[in-house]
């Protein structure tokens, strides 16, 4: 069984009026079946309101399914006694870097998770050091988070999750509030974790460029999984992506248009180098 598995997962947001009567409900996640293997790099893609964040919150037991089931490392998230184990197994990084850093100094923030778990003091320090080194922020350990750039803050947040020794890390649009450089920094750190530490990564995003390195991509729309496959498979279906209001990377778009005009090119070109090679330049 995979590290994260869902079966017909449904989540309903219930809207209430001022007296608390049910006015209506929105199905944010609708019958999602996922099976994620340990060590995978998964990307979940979707435009705003496609239910991708809601799905992510289930993987950390912040939300519990309305219907269906989700197992994290074989544990059912509805089991209250497993709650803290699940949150430790599946760490979560959120969108806004300012709203998830608790410590006033970088190292104190990274130590927050292990402190909550009751890890002995000496080991907390070891974990903080190794986590900060893993994301390349060790030299900033004594800094105030307010003095860091967005990308650096997000890397601190990732270190904060790493220090809890998770098996899986879920990143809920970690780059949405960053500039292009910060985005690259964060994605590079995440890839390194997946490749070096063999950590399972679930990256939720709406930036196409970030999913190129993923092993498998799920595209969500209206709470359902609309497409799935490798990045190359996904990007070769340009028309479908457009129908889902998603943009493909510029290179892929260029290759697609060139092909339509009769230039022989393979489907799903992902990088500039690939295109150059295919064109024989």
């Amino acid at each position: 069984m995979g590290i994260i598995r869902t079966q017909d997962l449904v989540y309903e947001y219930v809207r209430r009026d001022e007296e608390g009567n049910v006015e209506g409900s929105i199905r944010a996640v609708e019958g999602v079946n996922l099976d994620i293997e340990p060590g995978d790099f998964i990307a979940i893609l979707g435009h705003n309101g496609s239910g991708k964040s809601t799905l992510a919150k289930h993987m950390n037991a912040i939300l519990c399914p309305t219907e269906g089931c989700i197992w994290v490392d074989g544990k059912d998230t509805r089991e209250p006694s497993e709650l803290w184990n699940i949150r430790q197994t599946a760490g979560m990084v959120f969108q806004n870097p300012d709203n998830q850093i608790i410590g006033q100094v970088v190292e104190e923030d990274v130590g927050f998770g292990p402190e909550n778990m009751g890890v002995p003091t000496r080991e907390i320090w070891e974990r903080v050091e190794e986590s900060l080194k893993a994301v390349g922020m060790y030299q900033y350990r004594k800094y105030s988070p307010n003095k860091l750039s967005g990308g650096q803050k997000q890397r601190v947040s990732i270190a904060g999750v790493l220090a809890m020794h998770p098996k899986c890390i879920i990143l809920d649009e970690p780059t949405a509030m960053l500039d292009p450089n910060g985005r690259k920094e964060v994605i590079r750190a995440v890839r390194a974790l997946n490749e070096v530490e063999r950590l399972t990564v679930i990256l939720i995003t709406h930036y196409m460029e970030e999913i190129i390195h993923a092993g498998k991509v799920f595209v969500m729309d209206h709470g359902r999984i609309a497409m799935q496959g490798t990045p190359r498979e996904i990007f070769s279906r340009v028309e479908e992506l457009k129908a889902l209001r998603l943009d493909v990377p510029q290179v892929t778009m260029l290759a697609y248009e060139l092909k339509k005009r009769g230039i022989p090119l393979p489907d799903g070109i992902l990088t500039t180098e690939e295109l150059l090679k295919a064109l024989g330049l």
Partner: protein
Amino acid sequence: MIRDITLGQYYQIDSVIHRLDPRVKLGGTLLFIISLFFFQNVWCYLLAALFLAVVIKLSRVPFKYIVKGMKAILFLLILTVIFNLFLTPGTPLVTFFGGKVRITEEGLKLAVFMAIRLAFLIIGSSIMTLTTTPNNLTDGMERLLRPLRVFRVPVHEGAMMMSIALRFIPILLEETDKIMKAQTARGADFESGNLIQRAKAMVPLLVPLIISAFRRANDLAMAMEARCYRGGENRTKMKPLIYRTEDYLAYFCVALYLGAGVFLGRL
């Protein structure tokens, strides 16, 4: 202008004062503040000034940086001086408007002492917050107040709230600045008009600020839960508080200062 408040802002540098146990700094600051209110003569104030000067020197925080934080309370300082100057009864020194308004000798003395007292108080507590990370500070407070848990006082929760509040002060200040600029760009006027008009002008500033604060609180609570936060039980410390020789020495220095104060107070 808002960014000038240094109270609650940690100044990153390595010094003897920075390394002291927060309990020492908390206790020391408290005793220092209390001592200020008992001191009556010039000698005592000289002693307090000397004590502060030594601590500032040891803390390696630039004096300019500390003074910058004082600007925020300048208004309070002036108000206190004015009230003391004009409202203290005693032998008149100068009179205006045919004796209706007057400055008395006692008032002058009190105003000067009050101003010095307040200034010292702010500098003293600024040094504490500048040299101690808020986390450390609340740790110290949590530890000092721990006995109150017997009476079911939520000491850990209080300390946690405090440290979060401190962490978000600079973020919310920055946000205030941003909203202010955004509203100014759309024609809001924060500068002119009388006091009531200006207070009213704050509404378009405060509403978005409070909404955003709530949103942040919600996000933060979720992030804390995601990182296994479940209150103070079974929680270990990354930086446990342990007294070292320097800390006992610091206690001794504070005691020495208080002793000297009592001695000088009798002069």
